[in-house]
């Protein structure tokens, strides 16, 4: 199957907006919250942080909560290896992120919002705080009772998980909570909370500004709109690109590969690895492989054993250790592939390890442990020889 479709580059996120953010918010204040929310629902926007929950529905669930205290949180923890687009968005168009938060706050009735920025991006903090301060003042003058504050992380990947992030904001160890209850009813300080990825908030702002139809023009039935991708690895043009959703990996590789791409890791360490034979049939989007935007390309000079080893080390370090399947599971997967490589275990042992990864998927408390099977099975199955020899 050969497709001639070229990749569609989109320019919504970083484009200089025609209308300034405050005047868009002013227009919003004249409408009913539920109408704004229905607009977002109509657009089909789904969360850009990885899990892909419908954004409008999330806002509606928080809107329906009967509470005088609610929160809006922008998840800028961006810890998934291979992702760097939220940094760029916060650096280049921070006003749009803040506007997305303010619109959400108006819709659900929140008075306070936080941006949880990963500690690695400290260099952005001073500038962002100034911009936030200025923005808060402007919201006051147009009569929206909402204030944003910046909060920094301290080098823990698991804190990107929404409930771990609340714990961290509350001054505790970043250990994920059980779900349910979900954040829209019990979130930060146990109050109804909308937590969205940086990029999601910008799209919510853009959709509110230009209308859902402009957004729906892009993408497919299951994956509406465009998405910002972080592209790295063996590519002549690494960087940040906003692309239409729903392309095949083959189209992607045609545009970004180095002519010798043997695999693409979609969605970072917790995502899946697509081998060359599946490029043409795999769609990048919610109907195929969803992604928070991390795309790593590997050419034939790379050892996929090394890649998997690197990913497993990452998870061993970043597991919060709260539940056994994840804490012990990742260590066993790592030791396991080392033993097979050294010939201390037969190749069939890989099948046992795959079962372990599937057990972790069903028995871990949060996404960090539940993701084990994604990289593990897709790499082991497709590059078995590289695991053994």
């Amino acid at each position, binding site marked *: 199957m050969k497709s001639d479709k070229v990749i569609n580059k989109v320019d919504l996120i970083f484009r200089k907006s025609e209308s300034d953010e405050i005047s868009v918010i002013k227009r919003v204040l004249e409408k009913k919250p539920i109408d704004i929310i229905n607009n977002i629902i109509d657009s089909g926007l789904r969360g850009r942080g990885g899990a892909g929950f419908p954004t409008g529905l999330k806002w509606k669930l928080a809107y329906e909560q009967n509470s005088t205290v609610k929160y809006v949180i922008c998840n800028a923890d961006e810890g998934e*290896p291979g992702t760097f687009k939220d940094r760029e968005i916060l650096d280049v168009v921070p006003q749009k992120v803040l506007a997305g938060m303010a619109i959400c706050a108006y819709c659900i009735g929140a008075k306070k919002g936080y941006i949880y920025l990963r500690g690695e991006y400290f260099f952005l903090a001073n500038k962002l705080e100034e911009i936030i301060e200025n923005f808060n003042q402007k919201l006051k003058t147009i009569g929206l009772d909402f204030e944003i504050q910046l909060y*920094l*992380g301290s080098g823990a990947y698991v804190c990107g998980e929404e409930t771990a992030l609340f714990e961290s904001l509350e*001054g505790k160890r970043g*250990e994920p909570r059980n779900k349910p209850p979900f954040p829209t009813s019990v979130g930060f300080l146990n109050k109804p909370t909308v937590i969205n990825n940086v990029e999601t908030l910008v799209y919510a702002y853009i959709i509110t500004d230009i209308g859902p139809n402009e957004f729906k023009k892009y993408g497919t039935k299951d994956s509406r709109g465009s998405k910002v991708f972080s592209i790295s690895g*063996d590519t002549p043009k690494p960087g940040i690109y906003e692309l239409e959703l729903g392309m095949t990996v083959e189209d992607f590789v045609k545009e970004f590969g180095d002519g010798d791409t043997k695999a693409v890791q979609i969605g970072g360490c917790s995502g899946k690895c697509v081998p060359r034979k599946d490029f043409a049939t795999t769609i990048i989007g919610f109907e195929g492989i969803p992604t928070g935007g991390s795309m790593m390309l590997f050419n034939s000079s790379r050892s996929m054993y*090394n890649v998997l080893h*690197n*990913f497993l080390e990452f998870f061993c370090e970043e597991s919060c250790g709260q539940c056994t399947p994840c804490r012990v599971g990742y260590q066993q997967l790592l030791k396991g592939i080392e033993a097979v490589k050294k010939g201390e275990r037969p190749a069939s042992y890989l099948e046992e390890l795959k079962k372990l990864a599937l057990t972790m998927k069903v028995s871990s408390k949060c996404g960090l442990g539940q993701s084990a099977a994604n990289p593990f099975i897709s790499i082991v199955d497709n590059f078995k020889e590289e695991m053994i020899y």
Partner: protein
Amino acid sequence: MNEIENIVKEMFKKYGKSRTALIPVLQSIIRKKRFLSDEDIVEVAKLFDLSSAEVYGVASFYSFLDIKPRGKYVIRICKTISCEMKGSKEIIESIKKMLKINLNETTKDNKFSLLTTNCLGWCHKGPAMLINEDVYYDLTPEKVAEIIEFYKNK
């Protein structure tokens, strides 16, 4: 008032007089001293009306809230695969030679500590590293030598 009390007061003002201010306090101490001593933890716990074990538990959870003594400049090299493919291991080796220390060690003059860290978010410009809060990317052994020299004389 001592230094820790000042920091706590400042953060209470900024984040409210609650536990929400705890991590900002610890981060602030790190930025000044590069690690949290036992005495600092006890002091912070007292000011927050928490047990020292509780504060220690929080600090030890986060990789940037060091509880081991560190040098004045903490170097953290990204070890994620994208940076590794662009030569991060070579960068680590060259710094080890330059500073005559191994990973997770501090130079005798207490000036530099050498650590690794996970993805820094500069995969398209790897290899990347942090020195304290500052980011450096597109590293080569030559470039790194120049940067380290700069910090040596700082």
